[in-house]
């Protein structure tokens, strides 16, 4: 295994005249769960999309598993924000999960029995096997999120990039996602997730990247989650700072996160 799962060098991304990411350097440890945190408009989603080659950087270089994204693509899975698709689309849960196999199938070939059994396995892992033939518009937000997670699991990747997997989900889904993340870590896979609820970072993740257009800090959560780093990132307005900085022990007592779990469609991130 390479010594870094994802390597980002001097990455700069700009939309029109506004820089969204400035000169970001980053190394993601393989086999670890890494959270990307930062205020709204910090460029978290953009960072994920830049790694996936979905936005073209103004400058900088990205290596995934020591290769370019194009070369490493078959070993990368992506969980986009739940609100990025139309859930009224006429398709079933199983069908969406099967989309995770499209990359390895190549042109024209259709998914067959083998792909279907893999999709069912993935659904089982997220506790959604009973919903395989359900139409996707009949799912709750948490169930939708688990379907997206299952779609990524089907990709059978080594690196998982997730954009706010915990956004607006119920407690059961949150537990299911955490279980999956831990299982992936046990297998030695790498997970990078954009995360909003600061108080759960120490509990759920090993490493963290604190981002606000540029990289404020990155490394093991215990080292990175200092009052000063968070204050720099959030501009000094971090009311729940005491609960977070200093590790997981205090996390339980902290007040709720600043973002209420609203529908993402109603409040798209400004990136």
């Amino acid at each position: 295994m390479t010594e870094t799962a994802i390597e980002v060098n001097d990455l700069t991304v700009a939309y029109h005249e506004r820089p969204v990411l400035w000169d970001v350097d980053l190394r993601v440890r393989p086999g670890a769960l890494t959270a990307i945190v930062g205020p709204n408009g910090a460029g978290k989603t953009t960072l994920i999309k830049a790694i996936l080659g979905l936005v073209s950087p103004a400058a900088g270089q990205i290596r995934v598993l020591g290769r370019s994204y194009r070369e490493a693509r078959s070993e990368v899975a992506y969980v986009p924000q739940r609100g990025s698709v139309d859930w009224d689309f006429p398709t079933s849960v199983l069908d969406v999960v099967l989309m995770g196999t499209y990359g390895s199938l190549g042109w024209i070939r259709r998914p067959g029995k083998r792909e279907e059994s893999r999709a069912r396995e993935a659904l089982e892992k997220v506790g959604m096997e009973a919903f395989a033939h359900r139409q996707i518009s009949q799912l709750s937000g948490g169930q939708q999120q688990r379907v997206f997670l299952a779609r990524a699991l089907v990709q059978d990747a080594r690196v998982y990039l997730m954009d706010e997997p915990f956004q607006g989900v119920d407690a059961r889904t949150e537990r299911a996602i955490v279980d999956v993340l831990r299982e992936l870590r046990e297998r030695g896979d790498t997970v990078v997730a954009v995360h909003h609820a600061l108080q759960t970072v120490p509990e759920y993740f090993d490493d963290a990247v604190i981002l606000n257009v540029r990289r404020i800090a990155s490394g093991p959560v215990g080292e990175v989650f200092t009052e000063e780093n968070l204050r720099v990132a959030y501009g000094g307005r971090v009311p729940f700072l005491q609960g977070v900085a200093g590790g997981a022990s205090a996390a339980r007592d902290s007040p709720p996160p600043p973002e209420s779990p609203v529908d993402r469609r109603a409040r798209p991130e400004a990136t």
Partner: protein
Amino acid sequence: MSIGELFSLLLFDYTLRTVALGTAALGAVAGALGCFAVLRRQSLLGDAIAHAALPGIGLAFLLTGSRATPVLVLGAALAGWIGTLFVLWIVRSSRIREDAALGIVLSVFFGVGLVILTFVQRRPTAAQAGLETFLFGQAATLLLRDVLLIASLGGAALVVLALFWKEFKLLSFDPEFGASVGLPVTRVDLLLTSLLVVAIVIGLQAVGVVLISALVVAPAAAARQWTDSLSVMVVLAGFLGALAGVAGSMVSSLGGGIPTGPTIVLVASLAVIISLCFAPRRGLMAGFLRERGTRRRLRVDAVLADLYALAAQHGEATSHAHPVAVLRAMQERRGGLERSLEALESRGLAREVRPGEWCLTKAGVERARTLFLPEVAP
């Protein structure tokens, strides 16, 4: 003419059979491909493509002097495609939104088309007459070789649709995820849009520039109401499109100078109205019945709760009867009290002790406890 005569005409009259085959084929192709346009919120792109095709038809005629369908269809396709690229270019390179870009391309291309048509009309050939049918369409002008052209082009488009089914589905549902697994989104998008261009230009002669877009949207919108599966939706929309095509061409072939396009559009619109109202689950009627059922259940539950509250004042006694008037006072403005009581009685939860006086049965008390007690408890 009776319906029976009409159908025998459809089977045995050479001209009508030809026309019906042609409109059925183009209806099927437009309906099937329209599903993707509707799902991708590009319903009005078809309108822009169709209008943008007009200058292509005119120019093709002016340049070649031929009014053979393949020549005109090629011209229409090129112009329609260029119009689409213009829409894309305007949206990408400026602050003009898609709606305005579509409106500009649609109307300006059409205007240019009208200018070109004035040149066509000045030609001293008899051929000029044909081009006007492209505005509203005249199915009667379809010849067998036109039908063959429609069927072969449309068939080819459907084959491509089937081949790249998985790619088109992914593009329509989640293009970003598609890009992350290596789907060349821009190219697949162009391919799908090109198929839509084909579906539209093969319909111009029979349905016309002005209304062909409805044949793209209406069958898809109708089919969507009946199913939650993309493949079923596409097949159903193709079927509805073909049906609308046949019905429209039959009516317009009866004479009276009714153009085919509007008739086809009305049949397809009727399919949308019926689907919206009566489709199971998604239909408005189904929704209304569901809602009424829920409301009724809630009303029955409310009466059960009131009876239970009254019974609780008497130590949950199942013998003490309460007059309907008391219950009505507790119900305030909710109606249907008698019906709710009857519903409770039929489920064995309440009984009418004396006329107009009710109390809960044992089962009713049990039911009320499980329903309401957890909320009553602190």
